[in-house]
């Protein structure tokens, strides 16, 4: 490390310490300060990891995919530099490297794992010189930031063009736009996708990608799993969903997540993930394809994936009709308690919708509700405007809250999830916040309702 770099590191690290003392997160600011002293700092730090860098990009699923990869790399015993907090612009990436660097400018790391915002991909690819890039999907939800999808496409394309010939590009074959990147990659392309009819969506999906990128013809979609992700073919030029290198062949979805059978170039892999949702199956598959391409064994990949857990209380966040909506799956007393704790953080008064189903995937016995510490919610009752209970066992949930000591006048029951969502949004009011806490199948139902309202793709956002 040259002197300019060292000074940048020192100042950056002092800034990290100072931010911590001031109680700030420090996920980007130290990076900004250090880059001002040495604009080349990330480039210098990025070639220190012994096995190079991995870049994860795409519209949705970046954070989760990167965290799953990280979990697998850890299971493989590798030391990883990772912008975990999801600060995915150059300053945030620099700050992540800075935090791991020593005061002498060395870096004890085997691999850099970097989640990159789409517009940052070209610059990040130049500075990080990644050996592997993952592209998850393209969705139109950031229209206001990047203009059109074609624009986003060109950012990613530019990044892929910088990959070395001996590198890897891991692409989601089920997204026609992502698959179209294949011709721009000098590196070997690996395709992943789903081959499990049981995961196919029964709904009329909104398709952000409707036309063939090569000839402009309208794409024919076959089975799709989520929005425009699935099987497609162009009647004009014959472009179609590529053959898969990594494919989910079979899925058992349960209350604790999913069990996946994945076909890989090195044989079958069985893996369990502890997060629900088709989009998390995609995330897991991307992580499997990435880490196996890095040479990690099937056994370690399965182990690492299983070890991955989303932090309890971590909530999905979306905006519906000017209401902020937080969504957190609840499935057991420990998780529910953590969600209640998170819910009660912050001073503003809360509007809450709890949806309890008792289908097979939820667990048919809802006795566990009596092991959840709703008394805590009742004690903080003056900070809760209302609790709406919904789902097949809405009444059971209401009884539980009544016996926890929550005031009955602030309770309402509405079995139908669509109506409950409607009522919750109305009562939360313009500019208000609604917390939705559903069990597994209730979450899927709510997701469907929200998809129909046209807000579905936001679920994928971190």
């Amino acid at each position, binding site marked *: 490390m040259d002197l300019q770099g060292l000074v940048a590191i020192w100042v950056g690290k002092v800034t990290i310490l100072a931010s911590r003392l001031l109680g700030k997160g420090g996920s980007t600011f130290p990076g900004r300060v250090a880059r001002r002293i040495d604009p080349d700092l990330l480039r210098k730090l990025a070639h220190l990891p012994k096995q190079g860098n991995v870049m994860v990009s795409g519209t949705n699923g970046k954070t989760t995919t990167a965290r799953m990869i990280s979990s697998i790399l850890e299971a493989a015993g590798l030391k990883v530099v990772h912008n975990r907090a999801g600060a995915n612009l150059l300053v945030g990436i620099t700050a992540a490297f800075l935090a791991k660097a020593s005061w002498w400018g060395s870096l004890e790391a085997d691999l850099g794992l970097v989640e990159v915002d789409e517009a940052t991909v070209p610059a990040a690819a130049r500075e990080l010189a990644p050996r592997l890039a993952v592209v998850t999907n393209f969705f139109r939800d950031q229209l206001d930031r990047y203009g059109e999808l074609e624009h986003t496409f060109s950012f990613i394309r530019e990044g892929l063009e910088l990959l070395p010939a001996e590198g890897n590009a891991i692409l989601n074959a089920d997204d026609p736009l992502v698959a179209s990147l294949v011709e721009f990659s000098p590196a070997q392309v690996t395709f992943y996708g789903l081959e499990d009819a049981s995961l196919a969506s029964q709904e009329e999906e909104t398709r952000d990608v409707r036309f063939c990128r090569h000839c402009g013809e309208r794409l024919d979609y076959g089975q799709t799993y989520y929005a425009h992700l699935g099987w497609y073919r162009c009647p004009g030029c014959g472009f179609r969903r590529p053959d898969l290198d990594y494919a989910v062949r079979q899925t058992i979805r349960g209350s604790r997540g999913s069990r996946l059978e994945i076909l890989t170039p090195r044989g079958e892999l069985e893996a369990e993930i502890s997060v629900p949702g088709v989009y998390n199956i995609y995330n897991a598959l991307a992580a499997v394809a990435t880490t196996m391409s890095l040479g990690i064994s099937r056994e370690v990949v399965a182990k690492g994936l299983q070890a991955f857990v989303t932090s309890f209380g971590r909530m999905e966040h979306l905006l519906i009709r000017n209401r902020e909506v937080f969504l957190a799956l609840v499935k057991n007393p420990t998780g529910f308690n953590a969600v209640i704790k998170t819910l009660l953080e912050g001073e503003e008064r809360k509007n809450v919708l709890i949806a309890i189903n008792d289908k097979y995937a939820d667990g048919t016995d*809802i006795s566990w*509700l*009596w*092991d959840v510490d709703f008394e805590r919610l009742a004690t903080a009752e003056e900070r809760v405007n209302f609790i709406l209970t919904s789902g097949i066992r809405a009444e059971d949930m209401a*009884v539980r809250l*009544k016996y926890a000591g929550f005031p009955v006048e602030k309770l309402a029951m509405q079995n139908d999830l669509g109506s409950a969502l409607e009522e919750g949004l109305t009562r939360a009011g313009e500019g208000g916040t609604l917390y939705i806490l559903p069990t597994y199948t209730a979450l899927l139902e709510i997701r469907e309702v929200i998809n129909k309202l046209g807000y579905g793709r936001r679920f994928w956002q971190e």
Partner: protein
Amino acid sequence: MSDLKISVCHLYPDLMNLYGDRGNIIAFTRRCQWHGIETKIQSVTLNQVVDFAEFDFIFMGGGQDREQQAICYDFQQVKGTSLAEAVEAGVALLGICGAYQLLGRYYKTGEGEELPGLQILDVWTEAGDRRMIGNIVEESDLFPGRAKTLVGFENHSGRTFLGPKVRPLGRVLVGYGNNGEDGTEGAAYRHAIGTYLHGSALPKNPWLTDLLIAWSLERRYGAVTLSELDDEIEERAHQAAQRRAQETWGKIKAGVK
């Protein structure tokens, strides 16, 4: 009605706490509070010597087999006699699932070995090879005036049979019950009830809770008429559970998950 007190014993809360059974304690004490009755709860666990006749209500939830063995020994050696005397003296008791089995004469394992129980209830249990899981609805004539339905969720493989000294808590309308054969569920003897109902059992069956509260008061205060409570939410939950039992039972029979 004033100055009524109920002393509650929660037996093995650390070991017998499966399937939300603590909801029964929550429901019992809440309803006492709403009825204007003061409650005092004492937890009693392994190796603690107590005189059970000093309590008015004793509750014990279900447990896993492992815990049940430790309790079995403690029951026999430390607590059995006192507990049996208390029940004879009219102390109210509710035992769920594993506790219900332990209160009986014996539990016969798959190998034919008979593990002796407390002999407080004239029932015996035999290991079964299928698990009886699902929503359950039964009709009980334990209540003064008219028969009442009880709802819950059962999850057991032991098959329990009733002797002549007990009467069933209820007749099964939907579900398996004691053994999946004779249509009975649970057992009642004096003021003691054993049952397979989880759910938790008491919150959605407020009349059962009130019956236990009245029984708990009887020894000290004679027959007490409890105040009327607004049970609208409980009754709606009770009805919803009945509907759900009918739906899911149809599916169980059809072999669909």
